[in-house]
């Protein structure tokens, strides 16, 4: 009885709200509800994309050595926060403040009822602004993949401001915000940002790496690369799976609404792309090395997801696993080739850069007539239209974004290097960034002997009279104890 009451009452209230007197009022109500549903989905998607910060944190920390783990957390917290303010003050305005050629010009210090691009901004624009910020933050997180274990913390702070205020907004404006790349042909197709987010981030990473140089010990005296294994494969795996989850917000959220159930189709396309990436990368690395390399399977997942990001709203289901699989192949070959010259600890250049380029170009091959028309951007790809036109437009988009971001990033990192320095001292690098920069160890018990704490924390030995042997004694000692 009680249960029936508690569920029955809100339902009755809902019914009273949903069926007002007039028929026109009813239509208006439904439109409002639909609009609210769209905004709800955007905010849910924004939260999923926010969670990708956790994915990047774990991925990077897992691929780092145990002496550089706390710094990964500090970096994500600082970057994510600083970029938020920069995006609110400047970045969003440059990216989405009106459809000019190079950058928007309204919406600085975003506020309620402000006129942005000729329209007043309310909660729905705030949802869009937050969602787009999460993209900017993902792109920024990608930048640091190549710089682990040796970059100065101050470089994070300075580049985060420049990136979120200027560099990312320019690329986003050109393709998402009505800038000049959306006017080439019928527009560059990049549904959720293979180029805008992933290639842009990887290009920043490339510029940083060129000025930073490899980690100490990466290349032997003979110049040959040596693997520097990360300290935790489980953390890498967790990072990959969190990113995969976040990607449903990333791609399916880019529908910016729930109309025609497109978001659900995009989610399925995303899943198929990721699956293709894992399978292809795992098979290829097994064929090449006769070992099922877990890190490479993870990179395959990321590459599949990055590759399917641009086409996710433009291609049919059948194309998704193919695009993802080619992304998986690209990442394996890319990691193995780049490793010979550049020290990229997490494989960001391959997984986000090369796979991002491939994903953007893939639109020029796989975009279907139906979906090019539905989105109203660009034309069908080569396999539908028989024409190379869209492929050419995609290539221009890739080239323009890469060139602009590379130049701006080299200037920014070059200025940091020339003034306060980009890299920690050799002694700090050897000691690890955790103790050198943050004054603490990420895994204290690995570095501080229990004896330092006196009798307070001495582990199993403190059991004294206990008949249980400490877990660490060797088999031989255990036998002697038994005698």
């Amino acid at each position, binding site marked *: 009885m009680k249960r029936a009451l508690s569920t029955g009452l809100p339902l009755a209230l809902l019914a009273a709200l949903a069926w007002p007197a007039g028929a026109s009022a009813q239509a208006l109500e439904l439109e409002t509800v639909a609009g609210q549903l769209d905004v709800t989905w955007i905010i849910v998607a924004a939260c999923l994309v926010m969670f990708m910060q956790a994915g990047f944190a774990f991925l990077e920390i897992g691929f780092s050595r145990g002496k550089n783990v706390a710094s990964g957390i500090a970096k994500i917290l600082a970057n994510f926060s600083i970029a938020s303010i920069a995006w609110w003050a400047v970045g969003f305005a440059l990216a989405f403040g009106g459809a000019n050629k190079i950058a928007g010009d309204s919406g600085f210090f975003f506020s309620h009822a402000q006129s942005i691009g000729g329209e007043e901004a309310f909660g729905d624009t705030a949802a869009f602004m937050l969602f787009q910020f999460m993209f900017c933050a993902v792109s920024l997180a990608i930048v640091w993949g190549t710089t682990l274990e040796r970059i100065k913390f101050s470089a994070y702070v300075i580049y985060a401001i420049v990136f979120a205020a200027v560099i990312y907004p320019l690329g986003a404006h050109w393709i998402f915000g009505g800038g000049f790349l959306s006017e080439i042909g019928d527009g560059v197709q990049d549904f959720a940002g293979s180029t805008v987010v992933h290639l842009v981030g990887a290009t920043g990473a490339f510029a940083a790496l060129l000025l930073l140089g490899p980690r100490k010990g990466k290349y032997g005296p003979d110049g040959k690369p040596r693997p520097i294994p990360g300290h935790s494969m489980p953390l890498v795996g967790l990072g990959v799976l969190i990113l995969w989850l976040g990607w449903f917000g990333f791609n399916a959220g880019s529908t910016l609404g729930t109309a025609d159930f497109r978001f659900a189709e995009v989610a399925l396309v995303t899943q198929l792309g990721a699956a293709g990436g894992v399978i292809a990368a795992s098979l290829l690395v097994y064929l090449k090395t006769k070992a099922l390399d877990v890190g490479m399977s993870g990179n395959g997942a990321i590459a599949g997801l990055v590759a399917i990001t641009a086409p996710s709203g433009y291609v049919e289901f059948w194309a998704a696993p193919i695009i993802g699989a080619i992304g998986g192949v690209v990442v394996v070959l890319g990691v193995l080739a780049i490793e010979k010259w550049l020290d990229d600890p997490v494989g960001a250049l391959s997984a986000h850069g090369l796979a991002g380029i491939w994903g953007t170009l893939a639109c020029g091959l796989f975009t279907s007539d139906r979906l090019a028309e539905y989105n109203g951007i660009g034309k069908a790809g080569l396999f539908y239209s028989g024409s190379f036109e869209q492929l050419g437009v995609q290539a221009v988009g890739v080239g323009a974004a890469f060139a602009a971001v590379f130049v701006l990033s080299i200037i920014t990192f070059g200025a940091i290097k020339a003034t306060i320095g980009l890299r920690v001292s050799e002694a700090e690098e050897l000691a690890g960034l955790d103790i050198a920069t943050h*004054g603490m160890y990420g895994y204290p018990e690995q*570095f501080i002997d229990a004896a330092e704490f006196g009798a307070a924390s001495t582990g199993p030995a403190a059991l004294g009279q206990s008949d249980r042997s400490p877990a660490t004694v060797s088999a031989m000692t255990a036998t002697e104890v038994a005698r």
Partner: protein
Amino acid sequence: MKMVVAYIRHEAFEQIRKDLLDAGFPSLTITEVKGSGRQKGITEHYRGSELTVHLRPKIKIECVVEDSAVGVVKETILRHARTGSVGDGKIFTLPVEDAIRIRTGEAGEEVLQAHDAKGVTA
């Protein structure tokens, strides 16, 4: 026979190992150890509080050689482990009574010789 025991900085080890190998001394053992000397401790910060760690991580090398080879081993270690700063470590030389190669039961100085391991299954 003598055992050379050295406590050194981590970063010096790789070059020492390489030079000892080139000089014909492939056999050595290392241990990750923690110890204190004149080098100051490390100050750790944990949620705003300070914690001074007195024991610093070092590498301990143990290497048993014939008496005549002790000089070469010590020189090699000194060459790479000395930075001139506090915390470079120490070298000790200890007498060794006997040595036995477990696989064959051979005893004495001959077990110290680097030998051809052909026909030996790992």
